[in-house]
Every structure is written in C-alpha cells, then in structure tokens.
C-alpha cells in the first residue's frame, strides 16, 4: 500500500490541436490585437474626426498613406473574422441540431468570404473619384 501522492497529476494532451482549438486561440489572439486596433479606429473616426468630416476626399487623403491601408486591412481581417467566428459560436449555442449547425457554418463562411473580399478589393483599389 503506497501513500497517496499529494502532488497533482499533470496530464499533457498529446492530440494535435483541432480546428476548434485553433479557433479558440484565434479568438484570443485577435481579441488582444483588436483592443488597440478598434479602439484607436473608433476614437479617430467617431470621436476626433467625426462622421460629419468624412467624405470621399477624406478617405482618399487617408488611403494615400500606405500604412493606413495596412491598418484598415488588419481591421478587416481580424475584426470581421473574429465577429463571424463569434456569430458561429453564438448560433451553435442556440441551435443544437447538427444539420442546422452545418448550414449556419456554411452560410457564415460564405458571408465572411464575400464581405471580406468586397472590403479587401476596396482597400486595395482605393477611391474612384467620380
């Protein structure tokens, strides 16, 4: 009869990370990045500049600086990806049927690709002055 060890057993999972593990990590990584990215964006556009000062000329002036296009691209990638995966997560909480979850996941994936593409093309293409 051996005494029960007081040190807790540390178990390491040997299985490779699943898709959901990767998404869990992405939500946390993008979440940390989005705090400065989104808060600065909102402070600038909504509070400091204000929506009444934003027009085509303003966008053209901002996007003349490549760094701002990179910034907006990072916002698009991280914020919308974070949001759409969050939507999938919330949807799965409320609708439990496997077939419904599959349909929702595909709809969200397609919506994410289409809207990200629209935004991405606009950031690369820039302002088309009429």
């Amino acid at each position, binding site marked *: 009869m051996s005494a029960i060890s007081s040190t807790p057993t540390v178990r390491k999972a040997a299985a490779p990370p699943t898709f959901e593990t990767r998404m869990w990590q992405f939500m*946390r990584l993008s*979440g*940390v990045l*989005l*705090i400065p990215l*989104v*808060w600065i964006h*909102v*402070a600038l556009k*909504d*509070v*400091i500049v*204000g*929506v*009444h000062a*934003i*027009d*085509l000329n303003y*966008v*053209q002036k901002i996007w003349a600086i490549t760094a701002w296009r990179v910034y907006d691209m990072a916002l*698009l990638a991280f*914020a*919308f990806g974070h*949001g*759409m995966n*969050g*939507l999938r997560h*919330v949807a799965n*909480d*409320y*609708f*439990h049927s496997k077939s419904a979850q599959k349909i929702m996941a595909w709809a969200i994936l397609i*919506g994410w690709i289409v*809207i*990200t593409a*629209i*935004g991405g*093309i*606009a950031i690369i*293409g*820039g*302002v*088309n*002055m*009429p």
Partner: protein
Amino acid sequence: MATFISTLWEGVRYRGGIGNWAYLFHRLAGLATLLFLAIHIVDTAFVFFAPSLYAHAIDIYRSTPFMFGEIALVAGVLFHGANGLKIIVFDYRPDLWSHENEKRAAIIVFAVTIILWIPAAIIMGNNLIQCNFLHLCGE
C-alpha cells in the same frame, strides 16, 4: 425552435449575478458590433465600387438616430474589449480565478467601460448637437 427559446430565456433568467450580466452584454455587444461592421464594410467599399453613392451612405450615418446608435455602439465596443480581456486573463491564468475575483473583475470591466465611454459620449454628443441641432457643421 423550442431549444432556441429555452436557451435564450434561461440565459436571461439564470441568476448568476454580475458575471452572467457580463456574459449577456458581451454577446449582445458582439452581435450588434458585427451587424454594424458588416454594413460598414460594404458602405465603405462604395468608395471603390460606387463612389457616387458614398455620400448617401455617409448621410445616413450623420442622421440623428444613427448618431445616437453610434454613441451606444461605442459603449458596446468598449465593454466587449474590456470584458474580452477579462476572459483572456482568466483563460490563460486559471489560478487567478475564484468566485470573488470573477465578481471583482466584472465590476472593474463595467467601471472601465463607463470611464472610457463618458468622454467619448460627451464629444460625440457635442458633435451631434453642433451638427444636427444647431447646424454649425459645414456641408
């Protein structure tokens, strides 16, 4: 549909205190921000795809109800970020988690949200009054 309604209702009815409120607001703020973001990406893309329509889109953002909505949205974005940081800290440092700390952290999150939101709301509210009620903003 029955499971949807019961899950939705139980989430509100559950008496988890401030931690449960933080969870509900996190969800609500996240979904509201995503809805806004999807619309915002498409209307900003007008600068490339349909520049003549961009002014119409911006006019909607400048309307009084939208500006009120925007002030509320800023509160949501601040809360979602602060609460998200709380979630990340407890996820990676589970040793810090306790029933008491969860409560304390939620109070800090609500306090940080309000402290950051007040100056933003004052400036945005001032913009709203100057531009929409006193018409002092140049067109």
